[in-house]
């Protein structure tokens, strides 16, 4: 596509979208044969259409009316492609049958593409609507000028600009040629449609990729083919910052199909997104590469982290929370209140490391071409991936293109582009396109692990049983340790995930964070520290109920307290980071937390079900600006709990795509059952002990409830997160149900370790 009339205005910058320079302009497609993508599909970018008006880079309208909308976020199972582009089409007035999706490359032109933190809808939906509304206004302006009518008398519906007074209508295709001659309206004049006009939102939307995903047609990281491409498998040091002492490539080279054996550069602390080093076997196919790696004989120098041992580290974390830590939140005088308490309840909770284990292990194809590099990757962060590749290859980042494939699950793992940099380096070394293929063992043993942790609570109650004091200490290796040396404590953004933002109606409280050094790469995993906090606090509140012989629901509601909006001062912190969102737009609102608790227990028939002998557990948590409560019902089956029914109520503000939001809640329940029952990564002599699904278990179909009830609270509040908030309350609700069934309080995950 040759751009003949360049950027007229930096429109989106005016919208304040991440400060990136957004371009808006007119482009024409050159006539020519369609350019085939390496996978054999025709690239819609290179259609033979005579003229294309491009509301760059998100919306393109061709003269024949075909509308192409870019999906600029990573599609990893959350259904973003079936949601945000549909919103844009609706705002534009396009007919979805004439809209095709284009997966965007990593490019600042799209603003922020980091698909993380449950942000896709909550942080982008308004800006994307403004972009589509701008295109709509320009279409209307062009047509109105031609018809010599007031733009305000025209409407954009059904893929056309219509003028009801004269009953005239012009198709989007024709109108796009006129729109291309119109000035871009000032952002302040851009008007969104009233929400009542949006016909396809706030309801169930069709899953646009379901067909491709059900027929084997959807392309993931390992599915792209280039002529002459090779496949690499890497033997990485078993211990982080271990090094290759010596190796003999000969046995690997003797295997048919193996082309090359090369040593990878060793990383320097901090880990950041650097590849881990090791020895790569480059071969003609995956099988030969895997056999070659098996044949390698490598001697490792394990380095300082070889002392890391999960059993010993558990004691280190517990010692840390048994001593005073750094105060991160406080109100009143907790020491005095504890001293005056009539009853004290204390408990400690421990959670292990977890691995993301997306069903698709990391895989990436890179093609280094001397002065440029092209990459196809299942990445959550295409811009980071591009920058890291550029840095590793010593290229200008403009010379690196990162194409996003479908992600076969990610959960935070594919936000870390170490595997992408590996592919780029190896393509350079091999002088050919190279796909790096991680095996499941690689994925389990060389992850960015969810942080293991210890939490300790001491609560004091007065003579009436009211909780008057709450001392909470936590210790866990920080994610920051992956990005900086010498990190000993958690960052504010990590602590806000429960520790510093959980609403507490207790007059005296203090939260402390203890020292914990990291010895493996620590990374964020779906819901991050909220998993740990919600389990510990959710279990502890249940213990308080037992101590007072109260109904756990009443206890939870009492701790959350009356309906109110909490300021940073009420929380006992200097500043509430609130997932990067302003508190006035996304307040910490206990009315909403109370409502999901009340509703979920109502749906589960909490009181009478418990009376009739069912074993129910309850937990609730606010994370990523959404409020979720879960009730789990368990039956004991040969000494093991099985969830027979579960209820989840989520208040995520306005929900654009109900079907995908429900799917995320289903997924959260099941992901949560898996981690609560089985999930644990342990280290010995610095190396991960697990290697595949036989020893790192995730939930199987027989473990999921036959009845799952999901309710999304009807709300007109701004959208909150969807992908992550469902998960944190699952494990504590399950542990509390196990307590109800067995009288056994399990304070450490996974539950199966203690059953």
């Amino acid at each position, binding site marked *: 596509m040759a751009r003949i009339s360049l950027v007229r205005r930096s429109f989106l910058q005016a919208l304040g979208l991440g400060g990136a320079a957004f371009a808006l302009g007119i482009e024409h497609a050159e006539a020519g044969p369609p350019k085939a993508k390496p996978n054999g599909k025709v690239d819609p970018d290179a259609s033979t259409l005579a003229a294309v008006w491009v509301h760059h880079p998100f919306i393109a309208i061709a003269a024949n009316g075909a509308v192409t909308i870019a999906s600029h976020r990573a*599609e990893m*199972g959350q*259904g973003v492609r079936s949601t945000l582009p549909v919103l844009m089409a609706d705002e534009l007035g396009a007919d979805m049958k004439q809209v095709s999706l284009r997966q965007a490359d990593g490019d600042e032109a799209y603003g922020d593409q980091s698909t993380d933190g449950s942000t896709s809808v909550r942080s982008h939906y308004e800006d994307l609507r403004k972009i589509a509304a701008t295109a709509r206004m320009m279409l209307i302006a062009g047509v109105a000028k031609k018809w010599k009518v007031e733009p305000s008398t025209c409407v954009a519906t059904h893929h056309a600009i219509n003028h009801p007074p004269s009953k005239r209508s012009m198709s989007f295709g024709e109108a796009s040629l006129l729109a291309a001659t119109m000035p871009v309206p000032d952002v302040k004049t851009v008007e969104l449609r009233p929400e009542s006009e949006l016909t396809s939102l706030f309801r169930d939307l*069709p*899953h646009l*990729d*379901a*067909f*491709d*995903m*059900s*027929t*084997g*047609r*959807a*392309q*993931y990281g*390992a*599915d792209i*083919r280039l002529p002459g491409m090779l*496949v690499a498998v890497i033997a990485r040091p078993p211990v982080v910052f271990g090094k290759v002492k010596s190796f003999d490539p000969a046995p690997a080279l003797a295997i048919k*199909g193996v082309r090359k054996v090369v040593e990878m550069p060793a990383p320097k602390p901090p880990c950041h997104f650097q590849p881990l080093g090791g020895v790569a076997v480059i071969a003609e*196919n*995956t*099988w030969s590469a*895997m056999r070659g790696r098996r044949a390698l004989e490598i001697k490792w120098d394990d380095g300082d982290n070889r002392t890391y041992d999960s059993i010993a580290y558990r004691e280190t974390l517990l010692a840390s929370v048994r001593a005073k830590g750094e105060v991160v939140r406080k109100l009143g005088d907790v020491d005095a209140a504890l001293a005056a308490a009539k009853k004290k309840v204390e408990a400690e909770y421990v959670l292990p490391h977890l691995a993301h284990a*997306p*069903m*698709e*292990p990391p895989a990436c194809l890179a093609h280094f071409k001397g002065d440029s590099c092209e990459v196809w990757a299942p990445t959550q962060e295409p811009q980071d991936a591009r920058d890291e590749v550029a840095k590793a290859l010593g290229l200008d980042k403009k010379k690196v293109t990162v194409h996003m494939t*479908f*992600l*076969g*699950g*990610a*959960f935070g793992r594919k936000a870390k582009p170490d595997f992408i940099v590996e592919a780029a380096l190896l393509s350079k070394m091999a002088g050919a396109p190279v796909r790096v*293929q991680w095996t*499941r063992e690689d994925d389990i043993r060389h992850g960015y692990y969810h942080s293991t942790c210890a939490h300790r609570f001491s609560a004091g109650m007065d003579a009436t049983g009211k909780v008057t004091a709450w001392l909470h200490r936590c210790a866990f290796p920080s994610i920051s340790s992956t990005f900086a040396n010498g990190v000993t404590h958690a960052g504010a953004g990590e602590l806000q995930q429960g520790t510093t933002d959980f609403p507490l109606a207790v007059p005296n409280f203090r939260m402390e964070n203890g020292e914990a050094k990291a010895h493996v790469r620590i990374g964020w995993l779906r819901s991050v520290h909220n998993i740990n906090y919600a389990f510990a606090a959710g279990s502890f509140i249940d213990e308080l109920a037992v101590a007072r012989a109260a109904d756990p629901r009443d206890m939870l509601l009492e701790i959350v307290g009356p309906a109110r909006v909490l300021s940073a001062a009420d929380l006992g912190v200097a500043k509430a980071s609130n997932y990067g969102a302003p508190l006035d737009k996304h307040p910490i609102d206990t009315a909403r937390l109370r409502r999901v608790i009340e509703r979920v227990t109502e749906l589960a028939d909490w009181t009478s079900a418990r009376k009739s002998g069912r074993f129910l557990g309850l937990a609730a948590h606010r994370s990523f600006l959404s409020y979720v409560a879960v009730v789990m019902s368990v039956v004991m089956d040969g000494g093991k709990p099985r969830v027979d029914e579960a209820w989840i109520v989520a208040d995520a503000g306005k929900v654009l795509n109900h*079907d*995908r939001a429900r*799917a995320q809640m*289903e*997924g*959260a*329940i*099941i*992901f949560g059952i*898996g981690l609560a029952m089985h999930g644990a990564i342990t280290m010995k002599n610095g190396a991960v002990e697990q290697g*595949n*699904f*036989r020893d790192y278990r*995730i*939930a*199987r*179909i*027989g473990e*999921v*409830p*036959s009845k*799952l009830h999901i309710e999304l609270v009807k709300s007109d509040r701004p959208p909150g997160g969807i992908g992550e908030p469902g998960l944190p309350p699952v494990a504590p609700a399950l542990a509390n149900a196990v307590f109800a069934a067995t009288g056994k309080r399990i304070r450490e995950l996974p539950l199966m370790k203690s059953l």
Partner: protein
Amino acid sequence: MITVTINGKPQDLDVDPEMPILWVLRDVLGLTGTKFGCGEALCGACTVHLDGDVIRSCVTPIRHADGKKLTTIEGLSEAGDHPLQKAWVELGVPQCGYCQSGQIMSAAALLVKKPKPTDQEIDQSLAGNLCRCGTYIRIRAAVKKAAGV
């Protein structure tokens, strides 16, 4: 030379007879609908049919398929309209989609043997197919929908 009928087409393959079927499909034939998830028969992502039976292609050498018929997700139906595929789309089963070829291939073999499966039979047949996204509840519902139960 190994001769296998793949999705109805006889093919002569000049490959290492020990190469797992998965890699022959993916790397030699470019049939990438069959996925790699574990390589150890632990996840089911690589499920295909060998003479109608479910196998894990990641651990089955291609020599086992000599003279036999292999069916992959690409060959389950020409237009992607197998009753299971239709039910999968209608109920929006896939999240990331990565496990779904394997899930559908396992379910398809089940329906041949048990056209009206119970929940328990579904759970048993799909016990070896993992889904990290957690689509199991819709998988059960879609199998039943396709079976008309």
